[in-house]
């Protein structure tokens, strides 16, 4: 009987040599230099057995034992002890339920409750602007647990999360929709399904609303938000969280809520990262 010789061992050896050559020698770097990053990783791994990693505050870069934010920043930007205006989400003095604007009736209509995580100013404002305009959406995931805890403790559980839409043109320029990023964080953190595809759509590219009053904003936004046809059935009678990054007068939220309520959504709760702060007079 003829028996073919088994060359597999030799072949494996040759293959290994080629691998070495291709990955270490042809690249022009010495083997030691190539292994350097692996060595660094191993050292970092070994460190984790002996030390707990030091946490730094995301806003002021001081070391903080409390979590994402140090106590100073918590007090300065998030005011955990202050209530939020039921109508527009603004941070307000303790005894009140609504902010002065909403008491007069200037606030957004159609929303069941709105809450804001923090006050739009200082380092927190810079953080949000970095995320939006400096292409740093990866920063958001650092606040996911903080945001999740806050949202669950302040809002009733919903069926779906719906982010405020961004116009196609601006989305193409920026590469991401920050409201959708926040919503996907909450989906991950709290296990609430993110409604996909987004039923709300921007039909027109409105200019930035910075520096406009409430009436002008309402006028500006009229008819710019539409509803994706064919999604109405699923959303009928549902409770949703409407998610955005910043609110000032609540005009955008109001328009989105109006579109949602029109097709029969039962309750719309707004959740934003930042809003204004009303100081006690």
């Amino acid at each position, binding site marked *: 009987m003829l028996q073919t010789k088994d060359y597999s061992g030799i072949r494996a050896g040759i293959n290994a040599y080629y691998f070495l050559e291709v990955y270490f020698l042809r690249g022009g770097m010495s083997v030691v230099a190539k292994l350097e990053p692996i060595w660094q990783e191993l050292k970092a791994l070994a460190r984790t057995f002996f030390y707990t990693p030091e946490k730094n505050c995301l806003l002021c870069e001081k070391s903080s034992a409390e979590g994402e934010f140090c106590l100073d920043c918590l007090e300065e930007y998030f005011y955990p002890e202050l209530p939020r205006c039921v109508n527009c989400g603004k941070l307000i003095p303790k005894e009140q339920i609504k902010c002065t604007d909403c008491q007069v009736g200037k606030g957004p209509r159609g929303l069941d409750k709105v809450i804001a995580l923090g006050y739009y100013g200082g380092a927190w404002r810079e953080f949000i602007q970095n995320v939006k*305009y*400096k*292409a*740093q959406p*990866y920063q958001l995931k650092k606040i996911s647990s903080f945001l999740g805890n806050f949202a669950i403790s302040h809002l009733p559980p919903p069926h779906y999360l719906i982010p405020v839409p961004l116009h196609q043109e601006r*989305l*193409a*320029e920026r*590469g*991401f929709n920050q409201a959708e990023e926040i919503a996907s964080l909450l989906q991950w953190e709290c296990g609430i399904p993110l409604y996909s595809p987004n039923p709300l759509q921007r039909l027109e590219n409105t200019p930035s609303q910075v520096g406009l009053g409430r009436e002008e904003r309402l006028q500006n936004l009229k008819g710019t938000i539409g509803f994706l046809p064919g999604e109405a059935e699923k959303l009928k009678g549902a409770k949703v969280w409407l998610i955005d990054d910043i609110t000032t007068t609540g005009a955008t939220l109001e328009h989105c809520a109006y579109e949602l309520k029109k097709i029969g959504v039962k309750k719309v709760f707004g959740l934003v990262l930042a809003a204004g702060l009303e100081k006690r007079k």
Partner: protein
Amino acid sequence: MHFNLLLDQSDKVHIIPSQGEIPEGDWEVLYPGIPFYIAQELLREIDNEYSWGSKRKKRNLFRRKKEAMEKSTIKRKILSNLKNHPSLSKFTWQWMSKKSLKETKEEEAEKVKIPTSMEEKEKIKVDFLRRTEGRVLTKGDLQRLGQESNLSYIEILKLCQEQVNEGKGEWLSGLERNRMGWRCQRCGETKVEEWISIYGRAATCPSCASLGSLSSLNTLYRSLNNQNKATNENNGVSRNNTSRNNTISRDDVVIRNKFNEVNTSFAKSKIIFSPRWELTPAQKKAAEEILSFVKSEEPQGQVNSLFEKGFQHKKGFQKEILLWAACGAGKTEVCFPAAAWALNNNQKVLFAAPRQDVVWDIAPRLEGDFPNLSLGVHTGTSPQRFTPSQFVVATTHQILRFYQAFDLIFLDEMDAFPYYGNKALAWGIEKALKDTGKIVYLTATPSPESLQKVKRGKMQLLTLPARHHGHPIPVPQWKKFTGNPDPRQGNAEKVIKNLLPRIEELGKAGPILLFVPQISWVNPWVQLLQEFLPQRSIEGSFSSDPNRREKIENLRKGSFQLFVCTSILERGVTFPRAQVIVLGADHEIFDERSLVQMAGRVGRSRECPTGTALFLAPKTTPAIK
């Protein structure tokens, strides 16, 4: 900034900016626009598939000849590639012909003012070429450039695209991905933050964010200089073979000539170098050596390509020189003759320093010695960005905005904070330098790495031990000083009482620089000292202080008797009759090099060559010794 794929008559695919104008001829354009790196990827995919046949044939040793593709197959192939792409499949893609495009674009076109006369057109183009020469520009930079030269953003894009078509400029995606991972195209950083965009994977470079954010969705415009292009063509390598259009019209030749004329006009009017000082013999010798180093040329001939890698040159030729001189030896002045020679030979010169204060210290000195020089000062806060100039003084970070722009670079204080240990900036220097360019490093306290480089023969070394007035550097004294100098810890008054006699003593000799280790100590100390010494004028500053420049200029005039600061004034600045006190010298941020530099602030001028430097600390550290 977005780009479109464009298919021309000869079945070639180009990448053009969406907002630019539609070229002449029979084109078809793929809509909507996409970021540059995705357009590049699409092109690459098609190139791979069609130039080397199908995957099976790829294994063959004898590769097939490049197949000519038909228009329809290219279109179909691109569309099917897009369909299979996980994140690009959700867009609605379509090829639009020129006719349908023109209707939509006509409205936009009306807004753009078109210069009618030929002369005006030439003027604009020459101006644009001069401003962008040797630069790497982001979208924000291009917009600012538009503001400075009174052009709309769309016009600037048009000009850029013209350059790209001629092969004198190129588009780059902000970050590029290869087998090893992402790499920032501006600073060379490889540790970047990755995230998911609507186009799939994307990344942002965190390390050069101070120059404006840059992500892989952004695009950079980079101008290529003529010399570079010539060598490329000789070698038969085309940098951007997809978008090179070699037919250059006669108008362009005219413009190019005009541009060269303007550029050489620098050389025609000879730069006057009139030093207001005289060099000592030692300085003269050093200056001559630097001059001869700058003059030396690389020996001609082929470099063995097998061992040639990057910037390696022939044996015996050195591209770098290290000037090791004591503090206050007049390093800067030693460089001036060499700079003057280079300027008169129509070379571009850069003087880079690690800190703003050093830059603002050097710029007036240069202006004094080179009266008819167009000097460009680039720092993070300087308003002028794109004025063309032959001599540039810049902080090290601003260098990242240049590409193959300089023949000669002086790098001051190469061992100081932002430059030392920062791979990105070293990469930036290498990029800003022309292939034939040279670097002169200046330092008082060289790092061990650079000394090793000298040992290996990769760099020349020049030493200049004595100060220009011949007096030695004052030896700093260590005084035992108990008590915590932290102003927020209660016993600050006790500390001040210990400090006062010393201030009185030194104050007779001249203004005192009081160095503290932390920014947060500056203002409390200023307040405390003002309380205890009301008759003296006291001020303080730190790196993020908005009024920093004014304060330091006032200090230079001598209007403060006591100045509290962090290590910002540690290097490169000269104050007459200055005395130094270092508070908390045992703090960990003061290493040996910075302590030597701080002591070096004393007695720098000829009128007052002596002075005192005091290190106050409860115990000595190895650095103080």
